[in-house]
């Protein structure tokens, strides 16, 4: 049995900022992991420090004293921390997944007296029936979600591009005949039956 329902997720463009942060962390892990391997393998510490500044960074932070925290440093640290808090909270909020069911009824009419809906499977069957009418297509599986996508299996390799354009046109015409709203139709070549292909 083919599972047609899909769970999709809306991703905010802002979420990429959080992923950039993670990518930087990952790069730092890779880089300093490599430095650790070099040090453990007894490569010269001066050379490793020259390319990574690990010692310089450690010595700087290890040498900090309470007296180094001046009023100016406190002001900068306080304001930076105050700014980082809402920004990171916002980015974390945007990271939360917002899944939704991609496949649902198509509503044709909805008022106080009646509703007319079309079940997604009906739309998919209409598309599949239209596509398999093409002589080069031996199978089709449609999925109605944000748009209508049809996976096709073909038996003929020649004129593949034309076959796919004609398959798309057949689906569009079938939707028109059924007086369904025009939908974006995607066609994907998903299979080629070498055994059943025609002698060309």
């Amino acid at each position, binding site marked *: 049995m083919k599972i047609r329902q899909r769970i999709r997720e809306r991703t905010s463009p802002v979420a990429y900022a959080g992923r950039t942060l993670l990518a930087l962390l990952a790069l730092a892990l*890779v880089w300093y992991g490599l430095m650790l391997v070099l040090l*453990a393998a007894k490569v010269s510490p001066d050379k490793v420090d020259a390319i990574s500044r690990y010692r310089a960074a450690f010595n700087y932070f290890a040498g900090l004293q309470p007296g180094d925290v001046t009023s100016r440093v406190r002001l900068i640290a306080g304001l930076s921390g105050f700014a980082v808090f809402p920004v*990171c909270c916002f980015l974390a909020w945007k*990271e939360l997944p917002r899944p939704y069911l991609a496949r649902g009824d198509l509503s044709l009419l909805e008022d106080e007296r009646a509703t007319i809906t079309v079940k997604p499977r009906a739309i998919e069957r209409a598309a599949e029936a239209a596509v398999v009418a093409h002589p080069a297509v031996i199978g089709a599986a449609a999925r109605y979600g944000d748009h209508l996508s049809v996976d096709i299996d*073909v038996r003929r390799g020649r004129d593949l*591009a034309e076959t796919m354009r004609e398959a798309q046109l057949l689906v569009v015409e079938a939707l028109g005949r059924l007086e369904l709203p025009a939908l974006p139709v995607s066609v994907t070549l998903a299979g*080629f039956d070498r055994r059943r292909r025609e002698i060309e």
Partner: protein
Amino acid sequence: MLLLLRAIARLTTFVLLIALAALGLATAVFSIQGDTRALSLPRLADHFQLPELRDEVGPYLDRLEGDGPTAWISVGAGAGAIAVGVLLLAGVFMPRRERLVVLEEQDEARLAARRRPFAQVAAALAEQERGVTQTRVRVRPARLGRGRLRVATYYSHGRSREEIERRVSAAVAPLADAFRLRKQVRARLGERGSARVQ
């Protein structure tokens, strides 16, 4: 596997952002007072046990930098950090869906082909040429610009390599041109015991 990596990357990003937000808030709060008073940055460092961490990391680095045999545990830790970093990068950057060979794209409507059936179609077209005994096709969809269609074909004795390459190239040309793929055709003389005889 990729799904798991993506989930781990998402979770790590969320935890990282929450940790950064908490750290930012703590830094802001602990900047209120100076010296070593209750709400000062040195006191925050004490709460995070940073002086103890410094006292442990310093001698560890000294030992690591000193002469002696390879510190295998540290090699393992470093290799582990590299592996975690690479896996996180894969979780962030690996594409979620299979890349398709695109014929046309207009808004949400797209005509495209999966790589395997597309390669099978190209192989079928190539194998219809007389003298071709076997074909291997690799398809690389475009990230930017044009993708690539590589055809490695084997031919029977009594044929010339140039002729086979020219004919196979002509056979797959309509497909490659329609899908805007650069084609590369290589012909080799088939060996004995090949599955197909012409």
